[in-house]
């Protein structure tokens, strides 16, 4: 097997049109941020009951997907699978881009984004959020070094070490992201150690789905050969990850269904929650999990690359639905403050909290996605990230 040749992609009308399109989304997001920050959060759908809204759904999705996007590189460097090695630079790049996009959304939704420096200089080390700030910055630094060892010939001998470091760091990072919710004792939908490993496995699925879509798009639009070998291997892996996420979701709900105290929140999510119930069953389970599994493992449909790409897109939409149900649904269900009492009168006590995202919030979230994609587009145009060919005879699909 000869060594893959990495080159920049060529610019062209299509490339610049894409940048203009992504730029429009980014500008819209920045405009929304200006509007929201200038007026205050009263112009959003958020309130004192649902304090994390649509921007958090996007931000956490992107951050989780970022660590998952690095998996492709890890499989090559850490687990020694040769087929994945030519894909590693894009994997590292996408990981950085998605994380930057996610952090952009997270920071711009703060009540005081102007105090970012405060967040970088004041740390409460008991806060998992503070740890996450360190983990995010560390991830960017480690993956940057990892990319350097891959792309600079003299540094190649350090790639394995850097790959191991990045792999362990990303596991800790996603454990940290899941623990943002896992460590919350106040709310019944959270407060579970299972959330940390569940977020890790969700990251595997969301990140790989994102990686596949970006890879397919780059090779299609740049007219480079991409063999079925690579596509089939990635597809099969994504199928396994979808199954693993389903397993964790099943265990999470079974546990809650067993614990009497949590029957209320389960009934809310699984049966009575309106939009949250619909998003769970239709969005997360059917569209985000079962349908992609059918598309991937069907004897004939599973060979169609467009359908595989469509399946990966469904995994992303399902992932957004999953996070919406967990984040917003988890807050919409009321806190059980007065055990054994019925609340006759109070300030939204014991009532389902309502939240309707505004266009501003959705625009900010989409802007984060666009920013991540724009970063990837520019990077592969100016640096040698992409193998000239990923045709079946150019890659070692059996290792």
């Amino acid at each position, binding site marked *: 097997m000869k060594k893959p040749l990495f080159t920049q992609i060529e610019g062209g009308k299509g490339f610049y049109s894409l940048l203009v399109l992504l730029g429009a989304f980014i500008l819209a997001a920045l405009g929304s941020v200006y509007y929201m*920050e200038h007026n205050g*959060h009263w112009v959003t759908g*958020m309130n004192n009951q649902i304090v994390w809204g649509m921007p958090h759904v996007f931000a956490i999705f992107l951050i989780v997907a970022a660590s998952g996007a690095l998996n492709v590189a890890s499989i090559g460097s850490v687990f020694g699978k040769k087929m994945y090695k030519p894909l590693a630079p894009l994997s590292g790049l996408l990981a950085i881009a998605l994380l930057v996009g996610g952090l952009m959304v997270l920071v711009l939704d703060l009540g005081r*984004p102007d*105090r970012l420096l405060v967040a970088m200089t004041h740390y409460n080390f008991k806060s998992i959020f503070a740890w996450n700030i360190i983990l995010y910055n560390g991830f960017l630094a480690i993956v940057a070094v990892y990319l350097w060892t891959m792309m600079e010939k003299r540094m190649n001998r350090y790639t394995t070490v850097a790959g191991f470091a990045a792999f362990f760091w990303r596991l800790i990072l996603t454990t940290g992201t899941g623990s943002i919710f896992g460590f919350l004792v106040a709310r019944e939908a959270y407060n579970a150690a299972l959330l940390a490993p569940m977020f890790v496995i969700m990251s595997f699925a969301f990140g790989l789905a994102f990686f596949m879509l970006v890879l397919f798009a780059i090779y299609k639009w740049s007219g480079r050969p991409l063999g079925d070998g690579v596509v089939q291997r990635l597809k099969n892996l994504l199928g396994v990850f979808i199954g693993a996420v389903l397993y964790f979701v099943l265990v999470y709900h079974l546990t809650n269904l067993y614990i009497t105290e949590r029957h209320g929140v389960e009934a809310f999510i699984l049966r009575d929650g309106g939009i949250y119930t619909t998003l769970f069953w239709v969005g997360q389970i059917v569209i985000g999990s079962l349908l992609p599994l059918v598309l991937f493992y069907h004897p004939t449909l599973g060979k169609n690359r467009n359908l595989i790409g469509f399946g990966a897109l469904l995994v992303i939409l399902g992932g957004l639905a999953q996070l919406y149900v967990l984040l917003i649904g988890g807050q919409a269900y009321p806190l059980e*403050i007065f055990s054994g009492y019925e*609340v006759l009168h*109070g300030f939204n006590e014991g009532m389902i909290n309502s939240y309707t995202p505004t266009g501003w919030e959705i625009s900010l979230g989409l802007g984060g996605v666009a920013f991540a994609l724009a970063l990837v587009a520019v990077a592969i145009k100016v640096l040698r990230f992409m193998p000239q060919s990923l045709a079946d005879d150019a890659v070692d699909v059996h290792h």
Partner: protein
Amino acid sequence: MSENNHAGVTRRDFLELGLKSAAAGVVLAPGVMLYSAAEARPADEPASSKVRWGMLIDTSKCASGCDACVTACEKENGWGGPNSNEKHSNALQKSQWIRKVELRNVDTGATSSLPMMCQHCANPPCVDVCPTGASMKRADGIVLVDRHICIGCRYCMMACPYKARSFVHEELENQSVNAPRGKGCVEACTFCVHKLDRGDGTTACAEACNADGHKAILVGDLKDPNSEIAQTVAKYATTQIRAELGLNTGMRYQGI
């Protein structure tokens, strides 16, 4: 910046006001003011861990439909009310430092009425989760938000088991000098820390409840064995809301 708007009150005015009210306290209610915690603390002296401020709320004395404590808090700290300075926020977005709740026991049908606010936990989840340390607990047990380093991430609101905190959704004007507030920051009941620090020994809500003759709210130092609150909690069964979380709240309830 909105949080620095102290409406022209000088330090001298502020201290004088504090001394006067402390003196008034001694004359008006000598029995109450004898307790050591109720002395004005010099501004350069940090809060002491020898004191643990607490409140005992007797739900059997708390009148259904009465919201004198809420109104007094609004007036004292400059939030809410008919002339709320949150002009744009909807009802769910406006701050709510203290709220009245009416409960019915599911088994027995017995009803009770009580005020809910920050429970000033000894182990506050909001302080645990705050990334910058803006959410903090003073040595004397009062849980506060440092508005200078709050970045408005709202993680403390996710973590609070009592829904006690509010996020300011808009620019504010006409703030109370007692409690500077600010757009994009989180806030909650301060245990009328400005009153305690100047030696009032009580809070606006407790004063209002007493003035109405209900006397449902007792404020004092839980660590002082001679204080009325310490003696009452030692004698009668009291509860902490969501006690199973082990947060050791400064707010204690009787009758639920």
